[in-house]
């Protein structure tokens, strides 16, 4: 689990809710926030438009083997003569799919657990928080290894195992928000009007509790991308798609002769993770009233 995401969660939980609407705009006006949002948008754009942007098929043998970067092959080629730029572009799509899938699972599970735990309190809260702690100490990377060993590799399984284990931080932030919100006037008002508790949770509390949790999501997803890359590097990614980690793993055999095979996929991962961290930091800083 990311050390700084952990700290940001503590900070966020201590922030009074309200007046957060314009904060996102303020966050992306800081230098870090601006670089972050531009990088993340570029990554998303490349991932979505990969078929249009990639000059070649990433699996097709196009040029000479192990050619250094040139005008025809800006990032060079691998040992089979496949274009590395195309590989990196398609790799963006793979990491984007994993990130998006995990993000959805994390938001759904995290807010469900956080809402229930914070609103019901009592033994429900105790039980849910205990399991949150248990999930938090699970080594996700090794659990993913076990799942791949038992069930075979595949993006769907990867998304599932990383999503099902990455929500604790979000749950804790949502829970803290709910605790702060549930005795506020607008919630009391809804209760007095006879709203059912799940209506109060979903319509009154959730929309207010979600923004700080979403801000953390960037930091959580950044860690997920690093895990996905590590698995790809170990040769455990989905064999049917190109991924940044798998490309870097090919580089390992040709380090002496082809530095570009290592550098470009690695830099792509670094940029995506850096962008997400910068964006996440900027938004959490703005939300918690720092700077």
């Amino acid at each position, binding site marked *: 689990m990311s050390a700084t995401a952990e700290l940001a969660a503590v900070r966020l939980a201590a922030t009074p809710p309200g007046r957060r609407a314009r904060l996102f705009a303020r966050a992306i006006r800081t230098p870090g926030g601006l670089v972050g949002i531009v990088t993340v948008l570029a990554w998303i754009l490349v991932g979505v438009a990969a078929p249009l942007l990639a000059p070649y098929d990433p699996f097709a043998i196009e040029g000479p083997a192990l050619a250094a970067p040139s005008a025809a092959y800006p990032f060079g080629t691998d040992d089979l003569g496949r274009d590395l730029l195309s590989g990196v572009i398609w790799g963006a799509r793979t990491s984007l799919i994993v990130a998006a899938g995990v993000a959805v699972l994390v938001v759904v599970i995290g807010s469900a657990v956080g809402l229930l735990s914070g609103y019901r309190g009592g033994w429900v809260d105790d039980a849910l928080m205990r399991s949150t702690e248990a999930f938090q100490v699970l080594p996700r990377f090794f659990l993913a290894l076990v799942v791949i060993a038992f069930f075979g590799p595949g993006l769907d399984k990867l998304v599932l195992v990383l999503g099902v284990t990455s929500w604790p931080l979000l749950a804790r932030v949502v829970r803290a928000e709910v605790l702060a919100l549930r005795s506020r006037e607008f919630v009391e008002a809804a209760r007095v009007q006879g709203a059912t508790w799940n209506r109060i949770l979903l319509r009154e509390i959730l929309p207010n509790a979600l923004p700080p949790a979403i801000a953390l999501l960037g930091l959580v997803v950044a860690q997920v991308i690093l895990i996905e890359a590590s698995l790809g*590097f170990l040769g455990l990614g989905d064999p049917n798609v190109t991924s940044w980690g798998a490309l870097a793993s090919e580089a390992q055999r040709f380090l002496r002769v082809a530095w570009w095979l290592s550098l470009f996929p690695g830099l792509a991962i670094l940029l995506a993770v850096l962008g997400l961290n910068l964006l996440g930091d900027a938004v959490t800083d703005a939300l918690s009233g720092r700077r």
Partner: protein
Amino acid sequence: MTRRYVLRRLAQVIPTTAAILVLGFLLIHLAPGDPVLALAGQNGDAEYYAFVREKFGLDESLPSQLATYAGNVVRGDLGTSYVQGRPVSQVIGERLPATLLLTSTALVVSTAVGIGVGVFAATRRRRWPDVTVSLTTLTLYAAPVFLLGQLAILLLALRLGWFPVQGMTDADGPATGIGHVLDVAHHLALPALALASQEIAAVARLSRIGLLDELARDHIRTARAKGVSERAVVLRHALRRALLPVVTVLGGRVGHLVAGAIVVEVVFGWPGLGRLLVTAMQNRDAPIVLGVFLLVAVTVVVANLLTDLVYAFLDPRVRYR
């Protein structure tokens, strides 16, 4: 430290460890096909499968299987690797020292260097050393560990020739004595550095923020007003509380470091658990993978326990909560 806090915290370890065991058990049974394949690996023969079926009581009810399984694991029996023809605990035990050496070196280095860098940056706030440190740590924090490892090999080992490229010892190096220690240390330098760098960045960022928060407090202003030297203000008055956030994340960092070590070992040909895991994955030798998972998970639980106890020792408020 109050005994009640220690006991209560110790008691929390039991359900967590039980949950990890049950999770391992569930995965064995959720895996497609016969659970005997998950327990014995894909390459066994009928006779061996019958033996495993008997040993784990696979023909009995699920709860009694769970009891058998948990009993075996608690006794340190993690099953047998059919591919290697040896107990999993023995195979892991052989590889463990190399990984322990690598991760503990990285843990010590990253804690010491990270705190140093954090203090350096915080005491030069908003000036160029601080900005440089912030940008560097941000970048390191985002860099995948294999990129750092490969770049280190490219620049420091292949280009400059300062460090060996692969392995733990030279083939013709001395096998014992101080020469052997130096040989291993020489091989350890790059992998440990690659593994430590992301953690250095994390610790540096945490201790910088912690120290900045602390230096803004009233008791620091008082100390300065009384003429205490800036060095003593930082090191004696501010640093202890400033480092609390660094202690909080120690337990989490252990899990993170071991995961990183697996990758680093593959990059540098370090003969630890990483190579073992990759081979086991290729051979579909599931018992080894599950064994390593259980070992790492329990290690992280214990590391978190120790972290909390250290934290309670440093910050009395926690003990009485």
